[in-house]
């Protein structure tokens, strides 16, 4: 979304227009949900947190600055809600691995198309990503998947740009190593989920 369109959208959101909310919702909902699903590794948690993110936008819409970048703002709220959720549940990264069975990829029935090479690569990347510690995972998700610049992503994470760049660089190296490991061991560490 170009800055002018976004500024117009923010102005209409500040005025409480439902059409503006719908436009923002259509633009960002799936991306926010995917970000939260990959961060939390749980569809249910992602569902709840993404709804709470939108409710926060509604509650704060009147106080948005006219130059607010909606994407980074929403992702920052979603991220903070995720960390609050982890704190409230006293979930750390180690215990989060027990939720891995809830990883969205595991819930889908394999289709013939999923047997193709591209799906196989996607599955491997999802697996490797899910095994990274949360701060590194979110750095890759923000920049590599959602297309934020490192400066925007640093603002989302509440970090200085240089600190974020270091984290991102380390995250890329870690993911690269994980992918090499999963390539060497194609079965991976995640078992098939049967529900």
């Amino acid at each position, binding site marked *: 979304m170009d800055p002018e369109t976004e500024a117009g959208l923010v102005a209409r959101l500040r005025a*409480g227009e439902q059409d503006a909310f719908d436009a923002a919702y259509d633009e960002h909902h*799936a991306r926010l949900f995917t970000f939260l699903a990959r961060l939390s590794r749980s569809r249910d948690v992602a569902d709840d947190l993404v709804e709470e993110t939108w409710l926060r936008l509604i509650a704060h819409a009147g106080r948005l600055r006219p130059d607010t970048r909606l994407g980074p703002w929403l992702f920052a709220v979603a991220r903070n809600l995720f960390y609050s959720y982890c704190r409230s549940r006293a979930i750390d990264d180690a215990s989060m691995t027990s939720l891995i069975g809830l990883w969205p990829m595991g819930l889908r029935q394999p289709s013939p198309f999923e047997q193709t090479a591209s799906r196989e690569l996607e599955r491997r990347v999802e697996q490797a990503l899910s095994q990274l510690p949360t701060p590194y995972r979110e750095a890759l998700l923000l920049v590599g998947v959602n297309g934020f610049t490192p400066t925007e992503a640093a603002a989302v994470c509440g970090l200085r740009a240089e600190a974020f760049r270091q984290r991102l660089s380390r995250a890329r190296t870690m993911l690269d190593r994980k992918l090499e490991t999963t390539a060497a061991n194609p079965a991976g560490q995640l078992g098939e989920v049967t529900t």
Partner: protein
Amino acid sequence: MMLDEHAHHGIDATLAVLSEHDPGPVRVAQTRTRCHAALRKEAARTQRAGGGSRQGWTRVLEPALVGSLSIIYLFEVLSRALQLYRF
């Protein structure tokens, strides 16, 4: 450094294969409905708050008007009394 940059581009290209997860149409519609309800509630709250500020303005204006009229009246009474004493 060049090698690092090349590797980073490779990882970013790898991440680009990831597709968006489908939040599910039912849940998307439910969330939208709840948000619309919240929007209406927020609009009503803002309207009430706006009405409250007008009352606040009236609360400020009324005493100021009454006070200034009282001062004018007192000034008039005093000036009339002084005129009486002079004669």
